[in-house]
């Protein structure tokens, strides 16, 4: 089976900024893939290169085995992109926008699918409203809908939930999950790391245009984050324990690998005569992975 997305040695420079630096990445069909990284890491540039909005200086990109330059028609037919910027055409209603977008992809009669998208995104009641009249969240839904009119097998969402209320986030993710279960490949960038952790089976982390981590979400969590004993203490923690852990905001965090290590840890604290004021068990999370990868502790 061909890869949904294949990115080979792609570089892109804007003036003095190296936005992408020899990026290699492959996303398999059916994956729910996360592309993470701080602002300016190059996520949007990479997506734009894939969509043909930006021309790579070097390297090649394929969507379902179609070269995005050489075979751009097929590549674009297989790709749906939700842009990061909240753009819309103020001249048209929601339904007009979707019909026009369908036409651009060569689809004449698309009413049934448009109705289904509208329904799934909670847009049915706004179908005949002018785009100008919609709230930001509603405009974002239309952007998602526009990316889906041609039923693309590969769907890329560039920060689709930025500045969006909880309800929409849930509606959106439920819909995207269903599309993923139906076989669509999903690539997602987001600032909400718990979103990525819950949704994505594999994650790439980008920093200054380079891929600095690429693994399954489970492996990343295992490698860079662990269960930790989190505690607040009245006294000072013994030095050897303090070395194992880290302190932030009055809370100490001491990582451990297995739950059988919890009792010995507590025993050592008690033996050092340290009083425990508060205690909890912290789970591995992507936030910690992200921070550690970005600090350059990638293995």
């Amino acid at each position, binding site marked *: 089976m061909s890869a949904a997305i294949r990115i080979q040695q792609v570089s892109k420079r*804007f003036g003095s900024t190296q936005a992408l630096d020899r990026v290699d990445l492959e996303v398999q069909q059916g994956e729910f893939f996360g592309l993470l990284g701080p602002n300016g890491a190059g996520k949007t540039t990479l997506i*734009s290169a894939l*969509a*043909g*909005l*930006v*021309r790579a200086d070097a390297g090649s990109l394929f969507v379902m085995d179609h070269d995005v330059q050489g075979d*751009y*028609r*097929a590549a*674009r*037919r297989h*790709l749906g*992109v939700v*842009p990061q*910027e909240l*753009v*819309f*055409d*103020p*001249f*048209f209603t929601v339904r*007009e*926008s979707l019909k*026009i*977008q369908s*036409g*651009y*992809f*060569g*689809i*004449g009669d698309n009413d049934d699918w448009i109705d289904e998208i509208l329904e799934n995104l909670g847009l049915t009641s706004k179908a005949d409203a002018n785009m100008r009249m919609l709230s930001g969240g509603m405009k974002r839904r239309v952007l998602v809908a*526009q990316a889906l009119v*041609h039923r693309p097998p590969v769907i890329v969402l560039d920060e689709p939930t930025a500045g969006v209320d909880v309800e929409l986030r849930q509606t959106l993710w439920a819909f995207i999950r269903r599309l993923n279960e139906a076989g669509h490949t999903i690539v997602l960038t987001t600032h909400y790391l718990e979103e990525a952790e819950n949704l994505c089976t594999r994650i790439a982390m980008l920093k200054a245009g380079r891929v600095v981590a690429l693994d399954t979400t489970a492996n990343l969590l295992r490698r860079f984050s662990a269960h930790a004993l989190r505690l607040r203490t009245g006294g000072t923690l013994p030095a050897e324990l303090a070395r194992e852990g880290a302190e932030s905001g009055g809370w100490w965090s001491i990582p451990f690998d297995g739950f059988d290590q919890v009792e010995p840890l507590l025993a050592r604290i008690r033996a050092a005569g340290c009083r425990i004021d508060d205690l909890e068990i912290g789970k591995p999370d992507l936030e910690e992975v992200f921070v550690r990868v970005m600090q350059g502790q990638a293995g």
Partner: protein
Amino acid sequence: MRHGFSTLLYKEVLRFWKVASQTVAAPVLTALLYLLIFSHVLEGHVKVHGVAYTAFLIPGLVMMSVLQNAFANSSSSLIQSKVTGNIVFVLLPPISYLEFFLAYVLASVVRGVVVGAGVLLATFWFAPLSFAEPLWILVFALMGGAILGSLGVIAGIWADKFDQLAAFQNFLIMPLTFLSGVFYSINSLPPFWQRVSHWNPVFYMIDGFRHGFFGVSDASPWLSLAVAGACLALLTVFTLNLLKRGYKLRA
């Protein structure tokens, strides 16, 4: 015909039609005002090629409206899409640069011809008009619209801001169209300005268009056709090259 192309053409026509009071009615009114003022001042004093001044003026105003509105359509649509960012909606689909070019230019021709027809309807009862060689009327209206539509595509792609587009319009398009014999026959000009006018391609478009009405003109309509054809070919090649390279549209 490819669906992507026809949809883009439809969308571009719908775009101006939805705001027809600004894009059609307003320019028709402007042309009507020119007619009322200039014919009031000059009618009875001036005859051109044996044609009464008002009758002479009408085709000029019609063609000027065709040209200016064709330019306005593609240029303003593109700059608006670029500034608001919704240009991505046409850049993401599998639309070729040739389809892109044809759709924007044809929509400009439609806008130009609609406004031109409106101006003709609003003005033709002010003077007895003839339609001596109607095929020329059609040919020059379509070619002129396409030429200015292509120029509009170039300007819309090149300009990053609205004031750059306004500069293009005010310092290039307006002088070219106003100094092209819309309001006078260039034969009435001093020799130096006659020679200058012969370097203005818009002069030939207006002259050829007018020839279709009266059967007389400053230049031969065949010469005008050759000039307009050359302009259109040149601009088409230039614009297609810009689009193919993705100039300012695909970074």
